[in-house]
Structures are given as C-alpha cells and as structure tokens.
C-alpha cells in the first residue's frame, strides 16, 4: 500500500517536471521564432510581390508590396477632430465653414466657395468630396484635378508623353469632361503612392508639374529661402540648368516638397493654366505682388473673381500650408512636414513613416515628443494657445471685412461710382487676400504664429482703411487712396 502510494507520488512529481520542462522548451522555441521574425523584419524592409510602374495609380496594388504603409494610408478615411480642424458635421459630410463663419460666405460672394465650403476630411476623401461639392453647380475647370486625383498618367496622355504640357492643356477642359477622362482611364484614385514615390526605387520624388515650375520660379528669384538649403546652394552655383527638386533637394527637403505639391496657394481656374505664385517669394505679400504683375491672355489684370456686391477684383487664397510653414521656426530648424504629420512608426523591428497623414495633435507622442521633452498636455496647451489667439485675431479680421463690404455697398447706394470707390475696392482686394491667406491655411496660425499675426494685422489695417475710404468717397483721402505697402514692408520681408 505504502510503496504504491510513494511510487504514485514520485510519478506525479516526474510528470510535473516533464510538463514544466516541456512548457519551458515550448517557450524557448517561441522566443526563437520571435527572434527569427524580428531578424527577418530587419533584413527585408519589403518584399516586391507585384510589379508597380509609373502608371500604377491604384494604391491597393502598391499595398501588396508595402502593406504597412498602405494600411496606415487607409486610415486617412477615419474621421478625426481637433479643436480647430475637421471638427464639425456628421460622418457623412463635414460641417459648412461658411455657415459657422458667415463672414467667409460674405467674403466669397461671387465665387463658388460661397455655395459650399466645408471642414476638411482626410486624404482618402479628396476626390469623392470634390466630385460631391455643390461648387460644381458652377462651371469649374479641369485644373482642380492636379491635386485631387492621381492624375499623372492623364497628364502624360494629354501632353503626348510630357506631363507639363498635359497640365497646360488641362485647364481648357471643364471639370466634368476631364473627370470623365480620368474615370475612363482607370486613374480615379485620390492621391496615391506613385504621386510621391518612384516605383523603381521607392525614393521620394515630386511629380506635380505645378510644383516643379513654382519651385523653379522661387529658386530663380532672390527671395530668401534659408529653410531650403538646396535652393541657396543652387543659387550659388552656375545656374546652367534650372533648379530641379528631384535632383537638387535633400531628403529632408523632399519630406516637405512632396506635401508642397498641393498644400499651397495656386491659381486654379479657366483663364490660364494652374500656376504657383512663387516668383517673388513665399510670403503673403510676395505672392500678392506676383499676382498683381500677372496678366491674363487678353492683357487684363489677374483676379480670381469679382466680388458680387462690390465688384472688387478679388484674389482667393487656396491653402498655403507650405508657404506659412516656410516662415515658421520649425521649417527654419530643419523640421519637415512629414516629421510631424507622418512621424516614424515602429512595427516590430522595422520603422516606417506613418502614412495616416493627420494633425500632429492627434499623435503628440510621436509627432512632438521626439524633440520636445514636455508632457503631452502641456504641448497640446501650447499649441492651442497659439491657435486660439490666431482664431480671435482672425474673427476680428472677419468683422472688419464685413464692415468694409457694408461701407462700399452703402457708398454705392449713395451714388459713388466705381472710379470714386477704386481705392476702397483695391483695399478690399488687399485685405481679403490676407485674411483668406490665414483662414484658408490649415494650421490656424500654428505653422508660423508671428507671420500669421502679421498677415492678419495687415488684413485688419487694410480693411479699416478701406472702410474709411468708402465712407469718404466724396473727398478721398490721398494716403488711403494710395494704400500701397507701408515703407517698412520691404525691410520687414527680410528674414
């Protein structure tokens, strides 16, 4: 009896030990496999399973080779909100900006943005939202596709192989006609891998002819560009060949240039081809000067639209993120767009750029804390302080623009002629350009807070000067009538 139970006990111990050793062996094997996986991840950053070419605009095909980047790219379809960005509306459609800020609508009367102008959504929606906007009830040009679709194969087709020629053709098409061509050619995708990556080497590259021409104009000008060292290097060289971002720019610069292909101010309508106004520099005043010296084909003065109530020839700002960033401390410190908007993301032993392009405020940890060793809450508070102040100044600008438009409308009722109102109308153009420059820019002033405040300050000043000029239409005040840039403006534009 005794022996039997002893033997039973020792057998139980033995079985126990065997089990423990077996589990330990299994764990060590699991560790071995884990180490193997990490090692192979580090060895092969990607495996090219399918061939992609210059004509592969479908991101899903690239996703076969680069699934991690593709997966994060798909996340741009998610709804995100920050205090000032993409914050309103339903899941189906973002809120109307022009309903929230009626001064925007007033400012855009006579332009399709007074019909429909909503909060932004992620990259995934750029084409669908453009196809759905009520702005299309007015005639729109094919130029718009430059930045809303993976349009390069279509440009090459239009230009018989030369994309720059294709772009020059595209403004002659109506949006609907060019959009049909895009869909028929099978390239109806929002911004895609091929727009920023060389399909052979995966190197970053710029493709958009508008940007290539614009950055050439900037390089050829003498506007300061201390944040873009390759431009300064090119200027110091022989200048025999034009500045070529794909050959001359550093990797860090390319991480901003690819974004600057679209997140910029440009002319995008039916009178002439899509144009980046960078020939005199990137600041709001520099670009205004460029537009003021630009003439349409018929020799008339450049404008985007005539204001419906006042008739002023207005400049509409697009979304000059690249330009405003260029004036800020981050650009000057060598921080690229992608450093904050597409920070590195570790996945196992590999490191990829997060292709979920979004507000850094949604990803403070990776976007900001890599450099700023300050708690998240404090960083967020700092950014929001800047944005709130910018917002308040901008709202004052909105009130001033409305007062200016009211003033001109009143003067017209009193019998003022266009010639008598000329100074006021000119000031409306100047004020609106500046206010819109900051309102349309998608950082609520954060990309360059001091520059934003200065531009808004100028907007306010011009708006109130214009209001005064409209009120005094019977006896114009000379100084207001001239309304040219103050003398300090020139020296102020130095870095």
């Amino acid at each position: 009896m005794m022996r039997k139970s002893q033997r039973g006990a020792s057998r139980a111990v033995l079985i126990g030990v065997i089990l423990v050793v077996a589990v330990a062996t299994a764990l060590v094997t699991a560790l071995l496999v884990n180490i193997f996986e990490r090692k192979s991840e580090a060895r092969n950053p990607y495996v090219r399973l399918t061939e992609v070419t210059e004509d592969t605009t479908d991101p899903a095909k690239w996703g076969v080779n680069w699934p991690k980047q593709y997966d994060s790219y798909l996340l741009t379809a998610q709804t995100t909100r920050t205090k000032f960005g993409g914050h309103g509306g339903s899941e189906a459609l973002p809120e109307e900006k022009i309903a929230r800020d009626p001064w925007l609508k007033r400012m855009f009367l006579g332009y399709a943005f007074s019909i429909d102008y909503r909060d932004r959504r992620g990259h995934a929606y750029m084409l669908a939202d453009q196809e759905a906007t009520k702005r299309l009830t007015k005639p729109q040009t094919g130029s718009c596709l430059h930045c809303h679709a993976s349009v390069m194969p279509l440009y090459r087709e239009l230009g018989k192989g030369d994309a720059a020629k294709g772009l020059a053709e595209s403004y002659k098409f109506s949006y609907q006609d060019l959009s049909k061509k895009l869909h028929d050619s099978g390239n109806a995708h929002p911004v895609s891998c091929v727009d920023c990556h060389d399909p052979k080497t995966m190197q970053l590259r710029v493709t958009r002819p508008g940007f290539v021409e614009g950055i050439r104009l900037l390089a050829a000008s003498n506007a300061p560009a201390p944040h873009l060292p390759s431009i300064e290097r090119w200027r110091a060289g022989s200048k025999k060949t034009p500045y070529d971002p794909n050959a001359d720019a550093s990797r860090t610069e390319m991480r901003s240039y690819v974004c600057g292909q679209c997140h910029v101010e440009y002319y995008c309508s039916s009178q002439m081809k899509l144009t980046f106004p960078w020939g005199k520099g990137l600041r709001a005043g520099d670009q205004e000067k460029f537009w003021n010296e630009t003439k349409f084909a018929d020799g008339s003065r450049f404008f985007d639209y005539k204001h419906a109530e006042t008739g002023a020839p207005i400049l509409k700002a697009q979304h000059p993120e690249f330009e405003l960033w260029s004036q800020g401390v981050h650009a000057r410190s060598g921080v690229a767009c992608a450093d904050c908007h597409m920070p590195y993301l570790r996945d196992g032993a590999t490191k990829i750029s997060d292709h979920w392009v979004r507000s850094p405020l949604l990803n403070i940890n990776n976007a900001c804390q890599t450099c700023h060793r300050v708690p998240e809450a404090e960083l967020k508070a700092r950014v929001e302080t800047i944005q709130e102040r910018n917002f308040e100044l901008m709202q004052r600008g909105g009130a001033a623009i409305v007062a200016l438009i009211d003033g001109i409308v009143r003067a017209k009722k009193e019998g003022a002629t266009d010639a008598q109102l000329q100074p006021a109308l000119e000031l409306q153009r100047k004020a609106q350009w500046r206010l819109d420059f900051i309102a349309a820019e998608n950082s609520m002033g954060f990309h360059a807070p001091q520059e934003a405040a200065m531009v808004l300050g100028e907007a306010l000043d011009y708006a109130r000067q214009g209001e005064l000029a409209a009120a005094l239409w019977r006896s114009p005040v000379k100084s207001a009538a001239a309304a040219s840039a103050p003398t300090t403006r020139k020296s102020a534009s130095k870095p």
Partner: protein
Amino acid sequence: MAGTWLSGQKGDAGGMIVLAILLGMLAGIGGFTFLYAEGFSYMSDDPKVCVNCHIMQPQYDSWQKASHHTVATCVACHLPHDFIGKYYSKAENGYHHSVAFTLQNFHEPIMIKDKSSRILQNNCLHCHGALVHEQIARAADGAGEVQCVHCHRSVGHGTPTGLGRR
C-alpha cells in the same frame, strides 16, 4: 515505452528517459536560441551590439554624428564603470530590453528610466567631475537635481531634428 512506465511495472526508468530527452531538447534549443540571438555579443562593449535588435538604430546613428562619439561609447555613458555595477546593470537592462522587444509593449518614443538617468549623470561626472565640482558637489542620487544633459542635450545624440527620433 510510455505505456510501460505508466503501468508502474518497471519503476520510473522510462519517465526518466523522457525527462532526459526533454531536458536535452531544452538545452539544445535554448543553446541554439542563445547563439542565434548573438547572446555572447552582449558581453562586449562594442556599440554595434546595441543595434542588434534595430530598435536603437536612430540612437546609434545619431551618436556617430554627435560630438562625444570619439570619446565615449554606449556603455561609457549608459553603464556604471565599476565591474559589479556594470554587469548587474547590463543584466538588468538586458532583461528589460528583451522583455520589451519580445512583447512589443514599450512606451514610444523610448524614454530613459530614472535609474539609468542617474547612471548617465554619474558618467558625465566620471570624466568632467573635476571641471564641475564647484557646481555639482556630489554624485547623482535623486530626482530634481541638476542634470548635465538638461542643457548639454546634444552631446550624445546630436540635435533632434530632421529624420527620425534619436
């Protein structure tokens, strides 16, 4: 064989053989894993060892660009200089790093622990102590005291800008 020992007829000799086989497998797989994971390399002071797992690649790259790369290696700044302290700390950090890298559950960006931060401070003083003894009279022993790298942040890994985290 298993049937024989489970029936209890011939003692537990069969069981012992199974155990021996299993132990042998454990030793074999364990040894192989250790070698495959380049276990012995961790005994050395070569900075390349610190990028074995690739997580520290930006730190390694930025160290090569920073001012101290000619005079200090990873272990010179990040491990105590006495024999026992060094290997104890190496083992402790090695354990934490292995667990973190295997389970992939660590905070990012990677942040230095308080204990390691004190080791770092003491190593600044190891070389520069004579120069700064007027300002810093004693070795680091607690939070809230002056850290050399608070101001001299770029000496080890350069200015954090541009590509990647350091």
